[in-house]
């Protein structure tokens, strides 16, 4: 499968506002590839570098170092985070602007405008001014403007933000439809359950670095993993980190997740190091567990 986006060792340092603003390393060497036709999600805590990665990809900001490559033939559709459009324009005019930028003719535009407005449930609001839209409606308008030209690469920054459950389902189905029509979708989201169900690949960013890349297969395997409960000791944490095992600190206990093919090996390591096992149980490991295991290690 060909690669549509390739990011290699991307670093970005930003100066904080003010005359004596200190330098902040927002991205600390991010590398990732997005394959053509796939659905890839970037997840992470606020400030992890998700939006900065996307903005660098789109050329809004320049990388301090590293390489960002985008398939030159790819036509991009982008939905910004918390979109804000022109107050006095109607949805139809916003869509016209989007379509006209991609040289879509008047006839084609009229057909496409009706089509995308229907797709995002905004047909009744086509001639309404954007200033009267709620947050969810603005989000839907932004999605329509991002896809009106049938982009080859769709980049959504928090597409489900501000949407009601029906809206979330609409975005979910839309992303699936876009993929089935041959588009590549790259998006950021905090709704992990949707990400887990939708994506071919999940990139977890943490503190400006890629903490983990999970394929759909990895996620399926994770569901079949076993959870080993251990007492929380610094020695245990060191050991789990050394053997690159997924774990989650939960007060006085640590949950260690061992995939089926590494279960025996994990048990051997733990007994060899003299770690007391509290209990072993079938894990209901989800992307959420894995995500928390990576980002939430305050208890260490």
């Amino acid at each position, binding site marked *: 499968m060909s690669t549509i986006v390739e990011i290699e060792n991307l670093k970005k340092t930003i100066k904080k506002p003010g005359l004596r603003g200190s330098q902040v390393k927002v991205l600390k060497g991010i590398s990732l590839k997005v394959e053509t036709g796939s659905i890839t999600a970037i997840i992470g805590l606020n400030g992890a570098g998700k939006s900065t990665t996307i903005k660098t990809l789109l050329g809004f900001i320049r990388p301090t170092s590293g390489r960002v490559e985008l398939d030159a033939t790819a036509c991009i559709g982008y939905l910004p985070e918390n979109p804000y*459009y022109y107050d*006095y324009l109607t949805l139809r005019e916003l869509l016209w602007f989007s379509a*006209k930028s991609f040289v879509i003719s008047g006839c084609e535009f009229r057909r496409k405008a009706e089509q995308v407005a229907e797709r995002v449930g905004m047909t009744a609001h086509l001639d309404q001014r954007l200033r009267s839209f709620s947050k969810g409606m603005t989000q839907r308008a932004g999605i329509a403007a991002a896809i009106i030209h049938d982009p080859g690469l769709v980049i959504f920054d928090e597409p489900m933000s501000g949407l009601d459950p029906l809206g979330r389902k609409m975005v979910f189905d839309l992303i699936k439809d876009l993929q089935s029509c041959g588009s590549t979708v790259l998006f950021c989201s905090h709704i992990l359950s949707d990400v887990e169900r939708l994506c071919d690949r999940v990139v977890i960013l943490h503190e400006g670095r890629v903490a983990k890349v999970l394929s759909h297969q990895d996620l399926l395997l994770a569901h079949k993993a076993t959870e080993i409960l251990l007492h929380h000791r610094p020695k245990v944490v060191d050991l789990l980190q050394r053997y690159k095992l997924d774990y989650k600190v939960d007060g006085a206990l640590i949950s260690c997740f061992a995939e089926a093919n590494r279960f025996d090996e994990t048990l051997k390591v733990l007994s060899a190091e003299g770690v007391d096992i509290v209990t072993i149980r079938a894990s209901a490991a989800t992307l959420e567990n894995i995500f928390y295991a990576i980002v939430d290690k305050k208890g260490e």
Partner: protein
Amino acid sequence: MWPIAKITFLEGFRSQVLYGIFLFALFVMVMSIVFSNFFMQDIGKVAVDFNLSAISFAGLLICLSVSINLISKDLDKKTIHFVLSKPISRTSYVFGKFFGISLIVLFAYLILTVLSGLVLMYLKYDSAQYFGMFSWAAYLQAIYFDLLKISLLNGIIILFSTVTTSSFLTMLLSISIYVVGQTISAVVGFIQLQTTDTGFATCTQKIIDVVKYLVPNFSAFDFKVISAHGMLVTPGEFFSFTAYGLCYLLLVLLAAAGIFSRKEFL
């Protein structure tokens, strides 16, 4: 560039602030009917000056409210991310914004010219004996140069919008340049009149010399008094002032496009 210009025009022309400015200008124009009667013998000149001032002030208000808002809001509210994700170059964005704003100003001037024309026609009908010197050509000439001045100011606003991130700073810098540009020729004239004993320090003169070449001479586009006397500039002057304004404007817009191309949008 056209899509940017069109949405800028639509967004600006539907702004409620613009209608407020129209109402204010119309009020001043109507008041000119009352006030010009206070100046016996000069009713014609005062009425022309009053109406041209109303148009000029309305143009300035459009620049400082509508134009600044149209560009700064794109940056403040991050609408720029949506715009630049389209295949639109940053230079096209700058020029598109300028043309969109220029269209708003052009339409506003057309409306204001018609309104002030109606007021003047009424006054001319009412007090024809005081309008002996009045010339429509001179009146339109003053409006044309004022439009050129406002376009130049719009270019400067766009330049400052690309440099700063705050609309307040853009407004402050633009007003400063406007005030300096309006007064610089008077200051230069004043310095030249001073004798060596009472004259300015050499460094002050040098600073003023630099400022004179950096800041556009806005007062050069002020033809209100000439117009009030029904006088026309020579074709040579007409073309040289036009060329001065357009060249300056082009330089300002190219500088803005250059800065904007290097700007990062976090």
